């Protein structure tokens, strides 16, 4: 299936979760902030949140700021 991550299409295996996706993308889950289809995903649910075909994800994190 295909999901969109930060505007880019990504192939995702069936059963892919937010957590496994982040790992595949080389993003330490630590401090990765995830929005799925416009809704924020609770960190505790990264592992339990299975992705679905067509999901749109935004992955963000803390950056330098004032």
């Amino acid at each position, binding site marked *: 299936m295909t999901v969109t991550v930060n505007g880019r299409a990504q192939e995702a295996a069936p059963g892919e979760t937010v957590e496994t996706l982040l790992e595949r993308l080389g993003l330490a889950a630590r401090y990765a902030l995830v929005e799925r289809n416009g809704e924020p995903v*609770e960190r505790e649910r990264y592992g339990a949140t299975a992705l679905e075909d067509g999901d749109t994800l935004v992955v963000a994190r803390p950056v330098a700021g004032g």
Partner: protein
Amino acid sequence: MNDPLVIAGRELRSRLITGTGKYSSPEAMRDAVVASGCELVTVAVGRIDLDSVEEAITDHLPEGVTLLPNTAGSATAEEAVRIARLARAGGLPDWIKLEVIPDPRWLLPDPVETLKAAAQLVGEGFTVLPYVLPDPVLQRKLEAVGCAAVMPLASPIGSGSGLKLRHTIEIMVEQAEVPVVVDAGLGAPSHAAEAMELGADAVLVNTAIARADDPAAMARAFRLGVEAGRTARLAGLIEERETAEPSSPLGGLAARP
């Protein structure tokens, strides 16, 4: 060493909050944060660039400092609320420095959208610290909707111009029901000390430290300046007077009548 600052029931020993932006390197940032002695540091929230995943800024922060995420990049209440929710869901603290800035030139906040977002976020359980133009009437409204503090700007972000809007900040301090944190535009420790002397509860400094020739030394200078100003506020400053008053007897060696 000073009396603690209390925001939303939390005691802070340092009345200096620093930003993490504009440093030449993460190491320079870290050293400055350590030298500043601050307990709260602000961070923004941004998209990860999947093509070049740098280290997270948070990996460079010293132990024991607490992150204060801001909503930088928001031009509307809706965008700010979205960032706040994402930050909290992802495990950042539920304290939020609320900034809604429609104008990229002067980076001044939007009073209407800020108030709207503040009410929404307080309702969702956030501890909200809004960045505002010094506006005593807006301050009252933000207090009324339950903000934990208000953060009036001294002058435009990054200008280093000091308390150009001192007059309305003085009014805010006089009538404050929640802490007043002077944010933006403080360019020198004397500015920070002045803000504390007039009764501000804390200050937030970023550019003046990050862009100094020696950020760690400047961070220390601001720490001292904030402590100087707070100490003076509590010690009871003299009134300014129009005329002179001698510190030495005027008689000298002359016989006194």
